[in-house]
């Protein structure tokens, strides 16, 4: 019973971060707030965090998951969450002095980098508790079925989508623009007026 719980909690973990990353896309495309380099780094850290439970899910293909694999998965998540939290704290501290309004629009009263920090803290607590009860929560008697395939596929699609979007944003330039408010690739290829490279994008 608890083995199944551990299995589905790993799914919930990956799905939760898929939701957060899709939310980041929603803010980017709906409100037009383009992510700054530190925001992109936080997205990367979230993906690294999600690799842990993803590894645990995929291990069920070979039958019961070993305790060592379970510990390795959540160990990876803990290390990545510490890195992600450090990046988020860096961005929080950059904008902490009043009257700095912060970077981007606040969502539910907090900026996205503050929310990112909260998610990394939640991950640390979740992984700690999961490792405390690791013997009980190691997936046993479960099958790698279609829900697992959907979760793995969705996660990979989100990583690929981020790859495409960040390429569109950075274009072929060495530098991202100082104010990321447009997709450099379209301007580089002169798809619309004023196709010249500006904003420090070229070198």
């Amino acid at each position: 019973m608890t083995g199944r719980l551990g299995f589905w909690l790993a799914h919930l973990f990956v799905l939760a971060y898929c939701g957060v990353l899709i939310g980041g896309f929603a803010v980017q495309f709906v409100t037009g707030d383009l992510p700054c380099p530190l925001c992109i780094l936080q997205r990367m850290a979230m993906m690294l965090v999600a690799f842990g439970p993803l590894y645990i899910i995929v291990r069920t293909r070979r039958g019961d998951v070993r305790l060592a694999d379970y510990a390795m998965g959540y160990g990876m998540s803990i290390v990545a969450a510490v890195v992600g939290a450090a990046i988020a704290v860096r961005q929080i501290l950059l904008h902490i002095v009043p009257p700095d309004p912060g970077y981007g629009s606040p969502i539910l009263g907090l900026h996205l980098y503050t929310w990112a920090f909260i998610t990394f803290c939640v991950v640390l607590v979740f992984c700690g508790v999961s490792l405390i009860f690791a013997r009980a929560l190691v997936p046993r008697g479960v099958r790698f079925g279609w829900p697992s395939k959907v979760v793995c596929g969705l996660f990979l699609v989100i990583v690929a989508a981020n790859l495409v979007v960040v390429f569109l944003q950075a274009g072929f330039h060495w530098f991202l623009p100082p104010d990321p408010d447009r997709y450099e690739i379209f301007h580089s290829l002169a798809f619309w007026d004023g196709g010249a490279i500006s904003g420090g994008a070229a070198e």
Partner: protein
Amino acid sequence: MSGRRSSWFLIPARSSRFGHYFEQMATILFAVLLVAGWLIVRGSGRGTVLAAWTVSLVAILLLFNYHVGAKLPLNF
């Protein structure tokens, strides 16, 4: 876009000779993450997964180090 627009990340870091390569790394890093994710999902061995994850982590730390090293026009 609302909020403050910072341009601090355009200022070259201490290693200005190579610093500009790190900005382009964002695209490359997502490609590395995609490969690592693909290796995990296809069921690669423990060592392979750990190696791919470690490479991604080190690359992210390098990029983060570049941003931390940049001088900031904070005007305190």
